Each structure stands twice: as structure tokens, then as C-alpha cells.
């Protein structure tokens, strides 16, 4: 179920290297300002390292939720 309107969705489940956060970094870099990228990760570390990177880089978390072990995070590109 789509909980937020996103420009692009990246399914990074089951991937360790380069890993979910690097997939997000890549998509954000390529996107336009205002784009929303939704990333799905089943790596527990993502719940900490993704929000940390998003805040540090000045982007915005548009939505965040857990579905079982799957972590969904939608990030709006702010600059």
C-alpha cells in the first residue's frame, strides 16, 4: 500500500553492499529538488543510519514506517 506519493521507489531488501543507504544517496543525488524517494530496507541498521544521513544532509523525512521487518522511509530532496 502506497502511504505517501513518491517519485521513485527503491527496493533495497536483501542487499548488503553497497547497501540501502548508498542506494538512497545515489537516488537523491540524481533526483530533482522536491522529489520523494521511498526506500525499503530489511537491514536493521538502516533505521538508524538513514535518518542520520538525511538529517545531516538537510533533506526531509516525508514518511517512515515498519511493515514486519521491512523498514519504509520516504525522503524529500531539499537541496
Amino acid at each position, binding site marked *: 500500500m502506497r502511504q505517501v506519493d513518491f517519485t521513485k521507489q527503491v527496493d533495497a531488501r536483501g542487499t548488503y*553492499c553497497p*547497501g540501502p543507504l548508498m542506494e538512497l544517496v*545515489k537516488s537523491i543525488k540524481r533526483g530533482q529538488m522536491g522529489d520523494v524517494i521511498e526506500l525499503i530496507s530489511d537491514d536493521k541498521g538502516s533505521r538508524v543510519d538513514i535518518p542520520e544521513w538525511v538529517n545531516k544532509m538537510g533533506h526531509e523525512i516525508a514518511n517512515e514506517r515498519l511493515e514486519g521487518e521491512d523498514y519504509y522511509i520516504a525522503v524529500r530532496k531539499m537541496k
Partner: protein
Amino acid sequence: MPKKIVIVGGGSGGMMVANRLARQLPDEIKRNEVEITLLSNTEKHIYQPGYLFIAFNEQQPEHFIRKQERIAHRLVNLVYDDVQIIDPGTNRVHGDKSTYSYDYLVIATGSHPDMNSIPGLSEGADNFYTLEGAEKLRDKLADFQEGKILITIDVPHKCPAAPLEITLMLDDYFRKKGVRDQVEIKYTYPIGRIHSLQPVADWGLPEFEKRNIDYETFFNLEEVDSKKKVAITMDGEEHSYDILISIPAHTGAKAVIDSGLGDEDGFIPTDRYNLKMEGSDDVYVVGDATNLPISKAGSTAHYQAETLVHNLISRVKGRPETARYSGKVACFLENSLEDASMITFDYQHPPKPATTSDMLHWFKSVYNELYWLNARGIL
């Protein structure tokens, strides 16, 4: 009419697929029931991991280069042509010299660093991700006696271990030269740790601290001013350097982009298990050319080639395609010019670096030679 299998790209993945098919379908090829055509836009086959050793002048460049016709199996129809357009709508591939029709297509066009991805990068930065780059860097490092080496990393890039490896090897190289005290080595990474894999970051960090290698995380390069010799990050900070070793963002092949088959970076949306191009039953993708969120590495191409060849052979013989790619990747991690660790992982199992040892470095050196058996489809 033979069943035509066309492979675009004669690098690690494409060459392995072509040779494995030829070795496993010799009778069918001789009876003209199957034809395997490998389209290559270069006469050279280069073992790219060799660039690391070229940069430190540990090996001569020629050591890592062979002629394509010396590696391709005699039952492979090797054709030198630069593919311009791949057209899955008509099952045709258009090259500079000719047009090729296919029943099954394997795209193995790889990825390459985009030196124009950041303003000033091509003028200001060195790299070891191309043969010319590694040779140029070798000569600079040989002359370098004092100053600051800055390493920057962008995504996506192939071989996620290589930037960390070159950093650790630089430390050893300058220690052996006796000038390590005059050389500042600074490694940077775009996220909050020194490698995307936590276990690899945990493996490398104590080495950095022990060996006085400086590092900065959340480092996102935006511009290079080659006149002032500064790298400028997203937050506007200027970082000085004497040598800037940069691993630029990679893109897929031009032919993929021009054919409209790639995503925004030129990588082809691919099914992570059967390796077919999304929306197609006859087009397979192998190696760096896929958009799969896994390491772009030679070992990835190798394990994918095993899956893909198994399924193609089943198909040719009218049997079901049952092989699935498990996501398997294996990477060595050089810790210096003398010792190394390694990791293996797949979609289900996270990596755990092996204990660093001289043995693993030796094994990597042996693999550098064994690669040629791999490319020939023997190993």
C-alpha cells in the same frame, strides 16, 4: 536455422558467458543448431583489478591485458563491432559495421567512471579506475615525497572495496619508501562510516587509527578547483590536496542509454533472480550493466554468468529454466601490499571479513592469474 545467442560486451561477464556456452554446447554449435556471437568494441581484454597493482608499480600493465581472440573459445564467433543500438522490439542489435539478429541476447556492457560527473573533476583529480588513470597515478606516486593525498568517493561505483584498499596500500607504499611521516593520507566517505558495509567499516577503522590515516565521513564532493587545489563539499567547505584520488560516480554504457534501456544512470532494470531484463523474456543482463543494488564486481559477473548460462542451455535444449542467482559476491580486501582479508555474501547472508593474513594476499595474487581460466570458462 540455428538458435542465435548474441552477447554484447566482451569484458569479464560477456566473455565468461560466451565461453561457458561454447564449452557446454559444442555438438549443438558444430551441428549448426546454435550460434554464439560475441560483440566486442575492443580487441583488448583487461583484468581491471590489476589497476590497483599498476598504480603502485607492483606489476606491469601488460601483465593484466590479453587479446580477445586469445581468450575467446574457438566455437565463439567473436566480432569486433561497436554496438550503437539494442532493439528488443525487433530482436536486433545495430553495430557500426553490421546488424545482428538474435533469439536470445545477453547484455554485458559494464560500467565506467564518469569523470565529468562533478565540475572540475576531470582537470583536478587522478583515478585508478581506468588503465590511463592508473598509469598516470603510478608516475605521480613514484615522484611524491611530501604533501597531502585526499581520497574522495561517489556513488554508484564498481568494486566497493577498492577505495578502502588503495588507502591502506598507500600507507604501506609510503612507509616502505621511508617518507610516510611527510605524507598525509586523508580518506573520505559519503555516509557516516568509512564503508557502506558496517563489518567492513569495523574492519578498516582500527587500521586507520593504528596507521595514522586521517578520515572524514559525510563527505559529499560537489566541485573541484584544480587551480587552487581544493575539493569543495556540499556544505561549502574547502579541502586542500596535493594529489586528489577520486572515485567518480559510474554510468552504464552509452549504447544502453541511447537504446532507452537504462535507468537515470544507464543501468538496466533486471530481475534479481533470473537476470532477465524487466519486461523481456529473451534479453538477459550480466555484471555491472544491471541495476541490481549489489556490488558491481567481477565476482558478481562470474556467479551471475553461472546462473544465466545454465538457464540458456536449458532453454536451447527445450528444458525449464530453474537456476536462480543467489546474490553471491566475493571480494578480497587488501590491507597493505603484503596482507589481505576477504568477504563473501549473498541476498540472505551478510558479510563477515575473514582474519587478515599474508595467505589471503597471496591467494589474491594467485587469483589474479587464475582469472584467465575463469574468463575462458574453464574454472
